[in-house]
């Protein structure tokens, strides 16, 4: 068992939990989006920690590719969520 893998893996679990808690408790839609992004970053850290094989050894490239895909999907979901929030607010203003 690699120390770095365990350290980064356990930190990733903490970040996922922090993000989930904030996403459920915040009332601001913008901050909920931030919280979900933090949670996603925790998942990415989990995958990168799993891919790590120790200093000097080539890591597993498959989780890296998954995380790259995940980052791009996360930013498009963020953009759509913010556009929805903006529209929601414009509707509320009209009422």
């Amino acid at each position, binding site marked *: 068992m690699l*120390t770095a893998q365990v350290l980064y893996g356990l930190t990733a679990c903490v970040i996922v939990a922090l993000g989930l808690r*904030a996403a459920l408790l915040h009332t601001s839609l*913008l901050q909920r989006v*931030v919280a979900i992004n933090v949670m996603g970053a925790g998942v990415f850290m*989990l995958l990168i920690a799993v891919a790590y094989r120790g200093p000097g050894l080539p890591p597993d490239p498959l989780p*890296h590719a998954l995380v790259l895909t995940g980052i791009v999907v996360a930013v*498009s979901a963020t*953009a759509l969520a913010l*556009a929805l929030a903006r*529209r929601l607010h414009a509707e509320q203003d009209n009422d």
Partner: protein
Amino acid sequence: MNTTSLLVFDGLLLFSIVGLAWASLATTDERRSVILFMAFGLVLAVAWGRLLAPDVALAEAAIGAGLSGALLLAAARKQPRLLSPGSSKGSRHPDGANVSLVSRWAVTLLSAALAGTLAWALLHAFSSTPHDMLPRAISGNLASSGVSNPVTAVLLNFRAYDTLLELAVLLTAVLGIFALGQGTPGYQPAGPIFDGLVRWLVPVLILTAGYLLWVGAHAPGGAFQAGATLAAAGVVLRLAGRSRIGLPDGFVLRIVMAAGVGVFLLVGLTLLLLGRPFLGYPPAWAGALILLIETAAMLSIAATLLLAFVGGQPQSADVNAAANRQREEMS
């Protein structure tokens, strides 16, 4: 570097990552939250570098911290304190005034239980030695993939399906944004110092994007990092108050938006007609086909991310000029 100093570095890095995440989520100030989130993303990029994932580090710095941050910051600017439905009702507790103490504790316990379960599963997985079947399969077939960067080989060759669908997700997201209304008006023209910086920065960003696209075949880089860098050039132009931010108009814009998915599908279907599997490149042509797909993907990704920053269909230059005039009259 010896083991102890590496351990100290890891400790400091993880401490700042958790600290920034906590600080970003604990505040009720939306701007502060977003800015701390951007710092969190940049420190994460350092962590990805530490774990020997330079491709992910580049993408995190450009997309995760950079463009997500720009999107969130623009949203926080447009509706100061307005994005929260309950913001006008009395004081706001860090975790929301509408949530009772009981449910706050329940959510905290639920999150802690999730973290515990995850950690238990992770330690269980780490305690056995990894089989490494897939990494061996990747390195065994790398020579016939057309590129020498294993991450690019996975993204554009071995798991090209995933990337095709990912580009489709991007296209769907921007179509959703288009359906929600017009883009927001541009910014006021920048002062001479920022304007001078923009003149230098935009060509450098475009050049960097081209370099990242080319170098992705054999070193960290690729279409995603390049597309994000290209989009950043447009974001800088928009922040400087330019009415033209590098996006084409009308029909050409739609072609650029769909180019990534389109070229990907075209290559896959042509190969199918030639009797090969869908997206199963012939090894001799793999390098050229991957570069072709990546170029189209870079343009689509850049256009998509920039349109997301604009927040919808870009308004014409006349509308922006009119908005600027109106602002000047008001001030």
